[in-house]
């Protein structure tokens, strides 16, 4: 029986080889269908993995409160100097620390708009004054030296930690540790560097686009030297901003309490702030959102892919129907020489499956190459799950069988006498 099948396959390949160009063109539909399925899934998987990694890096047990500048304040320009006061308050921090249940640690962050300079090399990174536990809570990784320490905090020391990006720019040819860097008007000793981290907003699509030039100084040092009032000079007018805290990172003790803490934070902030001058980022929610997005994405991709596979299948069926008509005489001959109906069915089914599997194999190869190219050319991560090529391959076999059945059935049910008479 296996020998017969092998012979049938060889025979089918032989018949297909009689019309090489036609057979090749026929496989193209399945080829592109299968390769686009694999490639799209790989790119989608890579993109969502990247987004999820970023979200996870924020700490899936964290709830992040951020100050944002309310929009309507821009309208009332005209005065040369005015003070805009918005954002998270020290009171908010105190409430979180004292009243929120299930909270393990709370870290406040202040951002100070200062230039960071080493001789003639200058940058405007996020200068953040924060507590030493910031590193733990947000999972920052120290690449050299150390992070801020409690004694820095107590001593109100002029020390700072640079992110790698800043360090590389300011000290391109040397280690920045122990160097004195000028932040604003003051000099700070660099005690360590951290691995760069992309910043994440509440919009997952924008995640990863804001690159992270960060400088950390002790919270007390920032408060002592720069206060709450910040001066921004913009287009001829000086604008003063008063922001007490730019960010509060709440670390929740147990992951299942994150939604509860997030809800409490929302409730608290909406009650105590007259305007919406804050945002709440919940990485866990973003993670769920990202998974939901990925699922939608997969459904859309799957639909597109199945349409192209369907079109490919119809193309194969079309060609096979033409082939059956064209080979009516051959069918008559084979029937006269003793072929049963099932032999004819098998013969044409095998040919269809060979076509679609040929397209499927080439499609899998192409589908594995495209992600490599995308990774190389566009610097996008792609992930080929081993299951995907297998599924795509299986689908192409299925297409061959489904779309081959009808032509094969037509061939098998021809009247041998009529078929033999066919010119």
């Amino acid at each position, binding site marked *: 029986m296996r020998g*017969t099948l092998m012979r049938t396959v060889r*025979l089918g390949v032989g018949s297909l080889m009689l019309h090489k160009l036609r057979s090749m063109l026929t496989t193209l539909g399945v080829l592109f269908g299968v390769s686009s399925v694999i490639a799209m899934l790989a790119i989608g998987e890579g993109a969502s993995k990247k987004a999820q990694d970023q979200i996870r890096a924020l700490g899936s047990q964290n709830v992040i409160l951020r100050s944002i500048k309310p929009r309507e304040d821009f309208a009332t320009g005209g005065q040369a100097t005015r003070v805009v006061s918005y954002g998270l308050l020290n009171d908010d921090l105190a409430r979180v620390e004292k009243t929120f249940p299930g909270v393990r640690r709370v870290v406040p962050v202040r951002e100070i708009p200062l230039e960071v300079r080493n001789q003639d090399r200058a940058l405007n990174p996020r200068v953040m004054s924060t507590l030493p536990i910031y590193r733990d809570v947000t999972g920052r990784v120290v690449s050299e030296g150390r992070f801020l320490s409690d004694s820095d905090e107590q001593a109100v020391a002029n020390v700072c930690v640079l992110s790698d990006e800043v360090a590389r720019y300011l000290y391109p040819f040397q280690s920045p540790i122990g160097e004195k860097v000028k932040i604003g008007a003051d000099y700070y000793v660099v005690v360590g560097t951290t691995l760069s981290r992309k910043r994440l907003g509440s919009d997952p699509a924008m995640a990863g686009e804001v690159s992270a030039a960060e400088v950390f100084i002790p919270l007390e040092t920032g408060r002592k030297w720069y206060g709450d009032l910040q001066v921004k000079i913009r287009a001829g007018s000086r604008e003063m901003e008063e922001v007490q805290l730019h960010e509060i990172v709440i670390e929740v003790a147990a992951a299942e309490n994150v939604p509860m803490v997030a809800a409490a934070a929302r409730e608290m902030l909406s009650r105590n702030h007259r305007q919406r001058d804050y945002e709440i980022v919940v990485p866990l929610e973003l993670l769920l959102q990202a998974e939901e997005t990925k699922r939608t994405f997969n459904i859309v991709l799957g639909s597109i892919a199945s349409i192209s596979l369907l079109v490919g299948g119809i193309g194969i069926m079309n060609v096979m129907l033409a082939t059956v008509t064209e080979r009516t005489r051959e069918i008559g001959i084979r029937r006269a020489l*003793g072929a049963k109906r099932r032999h004819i069915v098998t013969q044409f089914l095998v040919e269809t499956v060979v076509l679609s599997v040929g397209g499927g194999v080439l499609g899998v190869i192409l589908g594995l190459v495209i992600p490599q190219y995308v990774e190389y050319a566009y610097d996008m991560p792609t992930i080929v799950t081993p299951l995907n090529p297998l599924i795509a391959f299986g689908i192409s076999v299925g297409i061959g069988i489904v779309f081959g059945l009808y032509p094969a059935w037509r061939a098998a049910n021809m009247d*041998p006498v009529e078929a*033999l008479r066919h010119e």
Partner: protein
Amino acid sequence: MSSRPLVHTAAEPVADLEHVSRVYRMGQTDVRALDDFSFTFRQGEYWAVMGSSGSGKSTLLNILGCLDRPNSGTYRVRGEDTQGLSDDDLSELRSRHLGFVFQNYNLLPQLNVLENILVPIFYQDVPPPGIEERAKELARRVGLGTRLEHRPTELSGGQQQRVAIARALINDPALILADEATGNLDSTTAQEILALLDELHAEGKTIVLVTHEPEVGKRAQHLLRLKDGRIEEVRHNRAPSGGPSSSNTAGTGGAG
């Protein structure tokens, strides 16, 4: 040589038709291609079937070849009634007991000579042992032993027909059915093919050859002439297998 009896009574019946009718519906009218037709082809006989177009000779051949079924009457192959047989059974019967030779050879273009000869075996569930050797032997027999790997398109018409005859012999059939086997060949080649058929007859094969060429008809052992689905004439030529002394009439093609 042909020492068969003149009257077909002694030998085993190979194909036995009893009151066979085959009616085709053509629009409003019924056409009786075979009309209450009874005849017996016996082991070792060589029959030429002649008749004008529409006489029913093609229908007879189709029924003999189990490609078509009679509307009424019985047809037995080696004593087995074909009436109750399924489509698959008929295929099986064709593959085991019948050999076909067609006017236009009907070789499969994608197969070489050896594979073409083996096609009937391909459809038997258990191929007989040593069948490839037998196929090569048959190819040698018809003078194509050195062309086993050739495709039909690389062969002349006469060579293709000889492959077709080898193919018809591969299953050692009870009955060889030849439909205008020389119709597409020039006279010299046609003579070669007829000589080959004579040889097979001499070996005891049962042959039914449909033709419209009188020369070919004369050459067979017996002649059966049909008209309007009935037997018009039965003649026993008793032609020696060396071939008739008649002139070589060029065979012009034509449908039967």
